[in-house]
């Protein structure tokens, strides 16, 4: 879809009035369109004003306790997958769009925005703007944006790291500075971390350099 048509979707996006297809297209566009990002930011603030025009009804007295109890059960370990607001660090819209691409069958889950999205976890990384997205069985993908291509003759290599051990989990080499999604070739057990090193083209069986990107433990 042409960019001009995309700009027209900013208001509908802020009002949550796009179809799932339109929303996906717009989010992919949003990730690299500063003027739409600015438009959405302004429209979202205004749309949120509409929330306050709702008629008065009494909220249930026990709702607060229920919410806090549910939060307590969750602990503080999970980072939301769909942070529509976080696009400075990591174009969140791009993440949502790329997740759909990167996770194949999970795309349907993400796009339908059902509760099962909760089965996916986002794990923060240090060293790049992005995160590791983990499925319920340790399936994982690295989603990063703005990562420079590796030096000539080199590649980036993913590792699943546990203690001192590191097992290779795939190679990648972003071309531009956009968002890339790399599905890991092996599952990531709980407590392990994901790392990225620069390796000679073709990859290495063991890391030969210090990781430039490391995730929090999964």
């Amino acid at each position, binding site marked *: 879809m042409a960019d001009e048509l995309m700009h027209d979707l900013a208001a509908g996006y802020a009002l949550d*009035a796009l179809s799932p297809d339109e929303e996906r297209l717009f989010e992919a566009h949003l990730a690299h369109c500063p003027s739409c990002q600015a438009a959405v930011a302004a429209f979202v603030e205004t749309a949120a004003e509409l929330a*306050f025009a709702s008629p008065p009804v009494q*909220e*249930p007295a026990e709702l607060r306790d229920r919410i806090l109890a549910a939060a307590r059960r*969750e*602990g503080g*370990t999970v*980072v*939301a997958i769909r942070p529509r607001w976080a696009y400075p660090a990591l174009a969140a819209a791009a993440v949502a769009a790329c997740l759909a691409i990167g996770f194949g069958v999970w795309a349907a889950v993400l796009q339908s925005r059902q509760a099962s999205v909760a089965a996916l976890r986002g794990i923060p990384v240090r*060293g790049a703007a992005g995160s590791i997205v983990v499925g319920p069985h340790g399936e994982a993908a690295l989603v990063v944006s703005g990562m420079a291509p590796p030096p000539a003759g080199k590649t980036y290599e993913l590792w699943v790291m546990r203690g001192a051990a590191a097992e290779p989990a795939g190679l990648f080499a972003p071309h531009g500075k956009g968002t890339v999604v790399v599905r890991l070739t092996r599952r990531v057990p709980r407590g392990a971390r994901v790392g990225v090193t620069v390796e000679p083209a073709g990859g290495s069986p063991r890391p030969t350099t210090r990781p430039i990107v490391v995730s929090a433990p999964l």
Partner: protein
Amino acid sequence: MRGSVGRATASDGGRLLGSRRPRPTVPTPRDLAHLSDEAVVALAARSEEAALGELYDRYGAACYRLARRIVRDPALAEDVVQEAFLAIWRGAARFVPERARASAWIMTLVHRRAVDIVRREERRRALPLGEDHDERADESAESVVWLRLERERVQRALAQLPDQQRETLELAYYGGFTQSELAERLGRPLGTIKSQMFTGLQNLRGLIDAQAKEGSWQTS
């Protein structure tokens, strides 16, 4: 907290994932009352339960009213609010104050979930967009007076919009209709709906800003 209201960084990740023992510097709820919304969100990002409670105290009622208006059903509305607050809890570390006010972020989380639900419940959405007044909240309490002022402020701005812009915004925002559904329902070209949304939001912003400048919302 000594001003540590920034976002959780990646290097905090390990700690966040670790123990949840109370820190000696945890503020009491009383302290939280003096913090900005954004600072309270930053505390929630550090898994401070009191911060989530504080956000509920500030916005729980508004969230529930919005959810009720969209989904109609009290039990569904409760689910929406609970899901939204859990999304706050999980997503607080990713909230970026430079991008939006925390209140707008919170209402967006509620709106999104409410719309998801109402789209699944076609039958419910077919109901006319009336306002439920059967169980009015007691608005005399000081803590909810501001909600009434807020409502009057936004309603006054809405009332000044051209009819078609207001209709489009209300059906989209409270009715959960997509722009294509609105084009069909209202018998207007899709391009018209899109520009009514665009212009409607722009005009609404202008009206709200003008009110704020005049301070006219303080009088009723």
